């Protein structure tokens, strides 16, 4: 269904536990924001690109990342050069390249299930404050299932709007879509309650 960008593999990067990768990524993001030296930032960018080679990411995924990056960097570079000068533009763009490619590397090499388990484990200390990390997997599953139901509803509503010749009206689409969304929410709530959700 919504497979995401994950690419199976057996590289050291794939095998590193999701939690460590996530921490490393957060650390890297913090460093990237603090650093002001183009040399260091360039070095980090190079290291991240090396990571793509190490994880043997397919050319297809690399291309996809490069495309997103290309558009964004071109736009930001032009804008910052015009407004703030060349040095600032280079700095901003190096930051974007480092942060975006590292984050995408994480997403490509880590299964969604593993991220969920890692976050569940990471949030465990918060249990004493009423956070219930074991519910995360449930929330993810529930939301994905709702996405498929609502996609179907959205398609039906759009057809109905078309049949009435109102395919260009935002209201003719959004209002019935929302009302059916809310009705679905109430029905889902009842079904969840019937299956013991909310009973302690």
């Amino acid at each position, binding site marked *: 269904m919504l497979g995401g960008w994950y690419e199976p593999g057996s590289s050291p990067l794939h095998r590193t536990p999701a939690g460590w990768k996530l921490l490393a990524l957060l650390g890297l993001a913090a460093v990237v924001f603090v650093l002001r030296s183009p040399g260091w930032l360039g070095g980090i960018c190079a290291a991240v690109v090396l990571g793509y080679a190490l994880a043997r990411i397919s050319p297809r995924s690399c291309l996809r990342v490069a495309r997103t990056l290309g558009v964004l960097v071109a736009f930001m570079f032009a804008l910052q050069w015009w407004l703030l000068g060349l040095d600032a533009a280079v700095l901003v763009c190096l930051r974007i390249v480092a942060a975006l490619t590292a984050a995408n590397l994480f997403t490509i090499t880590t299964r969604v299930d593993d991220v969920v388990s890692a976050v569940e484990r990471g949030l465990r200390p918060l249990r004493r404050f009423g956070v219930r990390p074991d519910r995360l997997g*449930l929330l993810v*599953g529930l939301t994905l*299932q709702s996405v*498929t139901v609502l996609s179907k509803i959205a398609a039906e509503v759009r057809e109905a709007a078309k049949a009435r010749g109102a395919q260009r009206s935002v209201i003719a689409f959004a209002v019935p879509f929302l009302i059916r969304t809310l009705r679905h929410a109430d029905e889902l709530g009842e*079904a969840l309650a*019937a*299956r013991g959700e909310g*009973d*302690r």
Partner: protein
Amino acid sequence: MIEFEDVGHSYGERVVLSEVNLRLSERRVAFVGANGSGKSTLARMINGLVLPSTGRVLVDGLDPSRKGREVRRRVGFVFTNPDSQIVMPTAGEDVAFSLRRSGLSAGERAARAAEILTEHGLGGYADHPAHQLSGGQKQLLALCGMLVLDPDVLVCDEPTTLLDLRNKRQFCTLLAGLRQRVVLVTHDLDLLGDFDRVIVLDGGRVVADDEPEPALRHYRKLVG
């Protein structure tokens, strides 16, 4: 035994049920009535999805307003629209969802889910995306999600309204063979031939309570 004692209910100004007194001990009971007659509300009170404004409900001696959790463990509920009852992306995960508090390990839950799916003709669909099932299969999946908990009572609120004729018959045959006591809310009068008791509601009151034939005769007169 399901008991309604002087049960009444209203949503704001609108009264939907009044003075309902019933003791249901039969294996197959049906609630019949026009739209707005209060039959769905009455059915929902059996597992505490709706609590009565006045009077009280008892399920095997337990009051759903106080012992909601215990009652819901005994009473399964199948709704009209299968799309909103399926809560997880795959059929196996959805059935396993019912077992999340059973104390079983994830592996045992998945195995138990696969077992119940196979038992009801959905074997091999455990890893199948739930939304790609047909309407009839989805309703079957919703039923499996309840049966896996092995309840004593199964309440079904117009479970066949959105199904085609063939699936409707199939679903009813399955329902007829269940060990569970069944309370069925329905418009499909032909399904009720072998029921033990049919209760007709109109304007929030019980207007007939009898064996299928006389009760349905009364209902047809009421509508006709």
